[in-house]
Structure formats: structure tokens, C-alpha cells
């Protein structure tokens, strides 16, 4: 649903975003390149993720999202470029402050649920005894206390995913990275996960997640990086991404034509009694003045901000948008 706002607000959105107080960066990457057997999976990616932000990496399958995340986590090294995670160029040095949930989830099937959480914590430096205590407590808090002593193989897929998610957070990381966290979850669990991500951010944890679903990024993220073909054509606040497209004006007049029409932009078109066009660069005031002076008989006028989808199309191109849509379809199938 497009939001309705005063036009003057849109004119200044980019300025507002850039005037936000500078936060230290949880992640900084410059010119990351990764090639596999002659195929360039990631081609010069730049990212700046502020501490405490919810940051989305948005792109279709094969765009380079997972490879980028793997480079940020130190699972693989970039062929070129620099990465700095929580101030360290070698991500494993701060592994104790990072939580990671990969797209392909998995746990040892013979482990009990609370042991699995403790093990994931132990990998990040949390003592096993403490991890076991926290594991039980986390399961209890999330309504899974009854399954604490069950083996992973005895849990449903959804429950096992929740156990892994809790294991990702058990050591209370400062930075959490999720690779396609919503895939495979039903609507109820997607909502729960969204709530969890917001809670993490409220506590000051930086959350990065990759997704191919624009709605998730639009709903949750402070900032996004749009990735397509291994490149990042846009990275920054969601509002700034939307502002790449001029807000759309919807004008209803008493008559469809008159001398005032000269004041409308050349791309204006009408549907019924409504005129649609992009807000002129000069802003809304000169337009209104011209319409009033031309006696257009304004019945209603609304200025609608572009959605992230439109921004994605404008930034990454039609082809990338189609790929994104087909990714979404594939994952729903």
C-alpha cells in the first residue's frame, strides 16, 4: 500500500536521510570480488551497514547474495577488495560476536534440542554449561520447552528451524546475519521471525538478512543493498531507494482538458477523470499555482511515494525485477 504524505516531505527525503547522525559501521566492504572457475559471482560490491540497523540484501537467486554474505563471514575469502566486520578485517576474529543462520539449515539429528543450541553457542565461545542453561531457557521462552530433550530428528522441520534460530542467538551476538531467513517458513512463523528481528534491533543488535521478497525488505529494513548480477547498483536507506523514482501525482479535475493542461508534465496520462504523472522536479507548489490559475477545478490531488518494487525496477532494471519475481514464484511452488 503506498503511503500518502505531504509532497514537500518527499522533496527532502534524501536530504533527511543523509542528515541522520552518522553511526559507526558494523560492516564495511569495498570492491569485493569473487570468481569461481572463471565465473564472477560477486563483482565489486560495496556495503556500509550501520550498527544497530536492520539491513536487507535484496536480489534474485544467483545475484551474489549468499557469496557476499559468505565473504563477510569469512567462510570464503574475496579475490579482491576489503571487508571489515565489527572493526576486524578477519571475520573469524569476531566470530564470538556474530550469529549466522544459513539458507540451508541443518543440525546434527542425534543431538537433543537444548544440546544443539549449546553446541552452536560453544562454536561462538559460549561455555557449554552456560549454553545448556540458556538453551533450555530460550526453548521455554519460545514455547518449545517440552521439546528440549527431544532429538533433532524427532522434531518437525519448522521446530528444528526454530531451534537453529535460537542457537544462532544464544551467545547474544552484536551482529546477526540471516541468509533468506523467511524461506520455508509459514506466514505465522514469518511474522514471529519479523518480530524477533525487530526486538534484536531494538536491543542494538545489527541485523543483516538477504531476501528475494521485496515486501520483507520494505517492511523491516532501515537500509537495503540491491544486488543483481554480482553488482550492487544501490545501497542505502530504503527511503532513498524509493526516492530514486519521483513520487507519482494523482490529480482529479472537474474537466479533463483546458489551458491548465500546459502545466502538466509531458508524460501525464489520464484514466477516467484522473491524471497520473511523476511529480515535476520543480515541486508541487508551481503546479498547484498553475492549476488554480488555469481554473482546472481540482477535486483531489494526492502524491504517492514510489514503492521499493518500483525502485528496484528503476535501479536494477526490468530483467532483474523479473528474475526476482520468478525467484519468489519458485520458492512458493
Amino acid at each position: 500500500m503506498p503511503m500518502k504524505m505531504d509532497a514537500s516531505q518527499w522533496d527532502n527525503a534524501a536530504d533527511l536521510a543523509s542528515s541522520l547522525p552518522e553511526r559507526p559501521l558494523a560492516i564495511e566492504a569495498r570492491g569485493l570480488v569473487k570468481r569461481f572457475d572463471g565465473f564472477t559471482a560477486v563483482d565489486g560490491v560495496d556495503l556500509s551497514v550501520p550498527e544497530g540497523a536492520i539491513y536487507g540484501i535484496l536480489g534474485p537467486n544467483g545475484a551474489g547474495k549468499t557469496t557476499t554474505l559468505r565473504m563477510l563471514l569469512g567462510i570464503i575469502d574475496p579475490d579482491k577488495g576489503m571487508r571489515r566486520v565489527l572493526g576486524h578485517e578477519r571475520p573469524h576474529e569476531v566470530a564470538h560476536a556474530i550469529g549466522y543462520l544459513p539458507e540451508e539449515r541443518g543440525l546434527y539429528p542425534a543431538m537433543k534440542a537444548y544440546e544443539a543450541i549449546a553446541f552452536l553457542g560453544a562454536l561462538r565461545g559460549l561455555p557449554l554449561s552456560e549454553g545448556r542453561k540458556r538453551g533450555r531457557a530460550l526453548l521455554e521462552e519460545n514455547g518449545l520447552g517440552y521439546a528440549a530433550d527431544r532429538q533433532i530428528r524427532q522434531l518437525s522441520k519448522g521446530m528444528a528451524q526454530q531451534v537453529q534460530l535460537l542457537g544462532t542467538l544464544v551467545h547474544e551476538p552484536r551482529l546477526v546475519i540471516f541468509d533468506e531467513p523467511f524461506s520455508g517458513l509459514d506466514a505465522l512463523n514469518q511474522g514471529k521471525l519479523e518480530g524477533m528481528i525487530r526486538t534484536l534491533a531494538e536491543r542494538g543488535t545489527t541485523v543483516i538478512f538477504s531476501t528475494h521478497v521485496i515486501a520483507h525488505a520494505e517492511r523491516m529494513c532501515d537500509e537495503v543493498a540491491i544486488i543483481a548480477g554480482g553488482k550492487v547498483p544501490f545501497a542505502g536507506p530504503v527511503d532513498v531507494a524509493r526516492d530514486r523514482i519521483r513520487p507519482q501525482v494523482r490529480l482529479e479535475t472537474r474537466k479533463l482538458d483546458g489551458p491548465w493542461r500546459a502545466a502538466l508534465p509531458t508524460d501525464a496520462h489520464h484514466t477516467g477523470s484522473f491524471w497520473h504523472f511523476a511529480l515535476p522536479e520543480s515541486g508541487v507548489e508551481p503546479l498547484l499555482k498553475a492549476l488554480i490559475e488555469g481554473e482546472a477545478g481540482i477535486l483531489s490531488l494526492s502524491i504517492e511515494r514510489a514503492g521499493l518494487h518500483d525502485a528496484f525496477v528503476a535501479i536494477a532494471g526490468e530483467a532483474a525485477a523479473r528474475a526476482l519475481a520468478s525467484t519468489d514464484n519458485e520458492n512458493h511452488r
Partner: protein
Amino acid sequence: MRGRLSTLAAAMVIARRDFTAILFSRSFIFFLLGPLFPLLVGGLAGGLGQKVEQSASRPNLGIAMPAADVDAMLAARRALEPRIGHALPDFVVVRRLAPGETVDPTAVLNQGKSNLAALVTGSLKAPHLVGPAERIAQWQGPVSLVAAQALGDGPRAYPDIPLIATVTSQADDRRDRMHTAQGGQMLLFLLTMLLAGMVLSNLVEEKGNKIIEVLAAAIPMDAVFLGKLFAMLGVSFVGIAVWASAGGAWVLLAGQPLQALAPPAVGWPLFLALGVVYFAMGYLLIGSVFLAIGSMASTVREVQTLSMPATMLQLVVFFIASYAMTAPGSMVELAAIVFPFSSPFAMVARAAQDPAIWPHVAALAWQGFSVLLLVRAGATLFRKRVMKSGPAGAVSRKRGIFARLRRAQS
């Protein structure tokens, strides 16, 4: 705030998980019992063989002579037994002949009831030995000796010969220690061969469970590899302890002393300690290569395909070390010591033959360094080849050796 885990601490997290997972799995009991079955079969077969050999090498000779002569022959054999008993055949009385009575030797031998190899007939003064031509010649002397003793024509007195033990000669020492070296090397090889192969399939579980990415993100891949090796080494030690205890109990229950080996040059305590350390090193060295190779496989089937070349590699290493043992101080031995995979085998043989300690310190340092190098190389290869995503990964998989094998098999 908690700090990052060191590589060793991270490896221990992996090792602890793997170790307990294996130890408390149902299949572990089969792992423990596995080597006992061949030992049991071998023991039974050995016992039977011994029995057969005994009956073949200590034949029964039947006696069919006049009653007085039979008694005299048996008494003479008893008299001679303490001195040359092992060279004398056992006598079985077939018949005590009455005066004038005769016996048909061929008929007696053909009855086959007493498993007789030959028959002694005639009289003390003119004994006859009847039996298969190829065997009777070897008993001609002993039977003649017993008959002479029975007639009272044997030696009257046997002087006491005190036994004065001397230290063995240099040549004997060397030969005996070579036997010890050979034994140590063989044991090390058998254990490594039996246990190191398990490492091949070690990362298949992680890849199958998709947990490998979680591990790789949390700790360096070197730590994952090291942890897996430590876990399997720990499992191996448990296995060895169980098998050694079972073997010890068997020896105690059977009351059979083990064949004595010559004391090794460095002494038994140090030799055993070095044996344990060299086993660990040999295991880690070969295991790190197997782990890296196995990590490239994604299915158990691929792992099985790999096990044959892996076994061949172990055999080659063992042959190099065995050959080197026969030429101490030569360039061949030096090469076997320097080549990391044969080094533990060559050094355990050296410990049996040479009392110097410093070469072991140097060799262990070199082997340890080689382990780290191999683990690092394996981990790097794994990260480069396996941790991929998207179309690039697919491309590399199509080009991979296993993909070609799969295509060939299908």
C-alpha cells in the same frame, strides 16, 4: 565479554561433539567388536593348525614285538626322554606277541585306528621298521637308539653339563632388535590402516546435514579439520585400549606367554611411549589427507570409491618404511624419516634399533609441523572447492572428478 576461541579451543569443541557422538552411538559397539572377529577366527584357525601340525610332526610308531621287548623298548624311551625327548617318536603298543606269534605289519598299518605312521616289529636285536618309504628313514636312527638303550648298549653315564649363559653377540642383538622394530612397525601399520580409513567419511555427515556452513562461519576450517582428526584419534585410542585389554585378558586366561621380543634400544617404557606418539602422528598425517580427500566427496558411495587408493597409499608408505628398516643409517632410511607419511613408521623402527633420543624429538617436531601444513592445505582446498554457491558451484561440480565418475557409473 567473551573473546574469540583459539584454533585449538575451537578444534576441541568439534572434537568433543564428534567423540561423544561416536562413542554413544550404537554402531560403536560394532566398531569395537570388528577386529575381535578376525582375531577369534585367526585364533581358532591357529589352534587347529597347531593341532594338525603336532599330530603331523610327532607321529605315533606302533610296536608289535614280544612282550618283554615291548616293555624294554618303552623303558628305554622313558630313560632317553629327558635328554632327547623331542627327537623321539611316541610309541603305541599294538601287540605284545606271544612266543612264536607273528604279525602282518601291512594289515596293522592299513587299519588306521591309531593313526600309526609306521610299525616297529622284530626283536630288540633285529628290529624292523615298516612304513611309507619317505618317512621311515628319518626314524631309523631314533628307533635304533632306543633299541640299543633297551639292550643295555647305550651310554652308561651322562655327564652333567652346567649351562653358562653369555651375553648375545652384536649380530644377535641387531637381529633381535630388528624383530622388535618389525613388530612395532607392523602393529603401528595395522592400527593406522584399520583406523585411519574412518576419517574418509568424516565430513559427509556435516555436508549431508548442511551444518558445515554453520561450522565454517563460526570457526576456521583448520579447526574443523583438526577437531575431526582429534575426535577420531580419541575414538581410536578407546578402540585400542579395549582391544589391548581384550588381548591381555585372553593371554592371561589362556596362560600362554607372548613370544618374547628383544628389548628395544631405547628401553621398553620409552619405546611404548614413542609408539603411542608415533601412532598419533601417523594417524594425524594420513588422516589429514584422507579427511581432505573425503571432504571433496558428497556421498558415501564416493567415499567408498576413494577407500581403495587410500589403502594403497598406506601400503606404499608401509613398504617404504619396512625397506628402510633393513638399512639403518642409509639414505633410504633418511628419506623414509623425512617423508612425513613414512616418518612415524621409520622412527618407531629406529627407536627399537638405535638408543639416540634427539632424532625422535626432531622427527616429532617435523611430523607435527607436517600435520599442521596438511590440515591447512586441506582446509584451504575445502574452502575453495566446496564452499561455493550458485551457478559457479554448479560449474565446478560438473567439472569435478566425482562428477566424471558419476557419469561413468551411470
